[in-house]
């Protein structure tokens, strides 16, 4: 059975849900599950990982890890990998994970498999399924190196409680300062409590049919009544028009998402957009144009004026939520 090392990312003082997802998956695959958590004042969070299957949790805690910075985190994680000697390393393909994972793999002189949505194990070898062309196709990929480094797309696996031994070990990181060249001066995070689009369970997205930036409030209102796991998104047309920031964009030049529910309001459904949200579990389309391609992918379609449908929908969802 392979030893698996899971990197558990911390954001805003909490372990991310994606970290619990990959810990759960590691546990389900069998074998020894180790986890590593890096940050400042994160030691108290470590035991949470035991609940989802971590047998051993390595904690790298210090002021130099207060803000995420590629090189120190790569060094610390590589140091823990050296202690664990795992055959597989899992990371989350979050914004941070996408920066960290290839750098870590390169430091370990191995290849990595990015942004996987499914995993199977054949002996010690991982076979990973990953989307390419923003989801227009999938590949099954194997890594030849040791360890096999795999980043996993958030929302790909369920969080499952299955207790691991949960022994916590503090690790004093020995950083090679000569390699730390880039210095993070400041980090500005919007106060928003909304989850990132790639991790949200519900996305209410708007396109050209929203007619202007002021109308996105309607989408925010609907996302708000859906609850804290919901956020808003936008099509490229809405972003290029300057109505929404690029960080909201869903599709081939934006984010690829797979929420439980994707509501497309006033989005026609260009191939680049459909590629970016086609794996959503349930798709709702609201559009005035009955010929809009989005309707060919939608589980529920309403041909109507979104300005009439959305407020009523918000009201109804609120009622159901009680």
């Amino acid at each position, binding site marked *: 059975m392979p030893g698996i090392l899971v990197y558990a990312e911390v954001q805003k003082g909490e372990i991310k849900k994606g970290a619990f997802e990959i810990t759960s998956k590691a546990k389900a695959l069998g074998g020894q599950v180790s986890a590593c958590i890096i940050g400042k004042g994160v030691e108290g969070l470590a035991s949470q990982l035991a609940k989802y299957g971590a047998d051993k949790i390595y904690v790298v805690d210090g002021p130099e890890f207060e*803000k995420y910075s*590629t090189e120190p985190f790569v060094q610390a994680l590589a140091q823990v990998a050296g202690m664990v000697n795992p055959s597989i390393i899992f990371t989350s393909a979050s914004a941070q994970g996408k920066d960290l994972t290839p750098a870590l793999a390169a430091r370990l002189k191995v*290849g990595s498999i*990015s942004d996987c949505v499914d995993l199977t194990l054949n002996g010690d070898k991982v076979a990973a399924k990953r989307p390419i062309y923003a989801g227009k196709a999938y590949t099954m990929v194997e890594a030849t190196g040791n360890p096999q480094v795999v980043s996993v797309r958030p929302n790909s696996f369920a969080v499952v409680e299955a207790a691991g031994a949960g022994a916590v070990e503090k690790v004093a990181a020995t950083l090679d300062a000569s390699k730390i060249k880039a210095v993070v001066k400041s980090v500005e995070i919007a106060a928003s409590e909304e989850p990132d689009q790639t991790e949200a369970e519900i996305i209410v997205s708007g396109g050209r049919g929203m007619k202007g930036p002021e109308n996105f409030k309607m989408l925010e209102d609907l996302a708000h009544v859906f609850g804290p796991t919901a956020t808003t998104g936008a099509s490229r047309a809405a972003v290029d028009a300057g109505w929404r920031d690029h960080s909201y964009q869903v599709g*081939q030049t934006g984010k690829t998402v797979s929420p439980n529910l994707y509501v497309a309001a006033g989005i026609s459904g260009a191939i680049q957009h459909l590629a970016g949200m086609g794996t959503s579990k349930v798709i709702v389309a609201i559009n005035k144009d009955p010929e809009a391609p989005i309707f*060919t992918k939608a589980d529920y379609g309403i041909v109507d004026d979104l300005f009439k449908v959305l407020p009523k*929908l918000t009201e*109804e*969802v609120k009622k159901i939520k009680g």
Partner: protein
Amino acid sequence: MNTVVCLKQVPDTETLIKINAEGTGIVTEGVKWVMSPYDEFAVEEALRQKEKAGAGSVTLVSLGPDRVIEAIRTALAMGADTAVHVNDPAFAAKADPYATATVLAAAIKDATYDAIFCGKQAMDDDAGQVASILGELLGLPVVTMVTKLEVSADKKTATVTREVEGGQAIIDVPLPAVLTAQKGLNEPRYASLPGIMKAKKKPVTVKTAADLGVSVEPMTIIKSMTLPPARQAGKKIEGDDSDAKAVALAKALHEEAKLI
């Protein structure tokens, strides 16, 4: 300011992807090939930094078969000065991210540069790895997802803004460094007609594996390629009354889909 830009040619984003008979790759016939869209931001930034500095050169490096020359010519027409086209069938089936970065590093290592620009990911395999591996191989710092770049007058350091979850980070990095372009960094220019004419005469050096003295083995292997399961259109909620349709949708999401 001297810069290197790594380019990849990919299918246009409008392309409908079809899988080949072997199930290992895409059908390339009839595909319209373009410069990967994030690489356009990389080329544009290299040009702007050179223009701002008032001197320097922009060198393109690209790995791929003969067709790649079209993407190279496009970037030369935008204003890049020279290009290295690494073209060798020996690389064709082996060019995973690690191998690609190894080849690019070999092609770049003797160049003089203040920065290397890449797109944040190529718009075909979406791996987003090459720049990070390239930095490791060349011993350079890497900053990914760059949305703003200010280079110091002496070109020894840069202040970089990068996109992070929910916001942005400001980073000071010594040059040379590898920087990956995120959308928002700039608005890429179109090639002008004189630019296109000039591009035809700009030097493109073709290099083989033997020229670079490099051989590669992939670290990741694609075993198979498939299309996603076809998604069937579901039900249309019909009627003349907008309110009634909204109510029916909320009910369906609650009772059928069990999402609320």
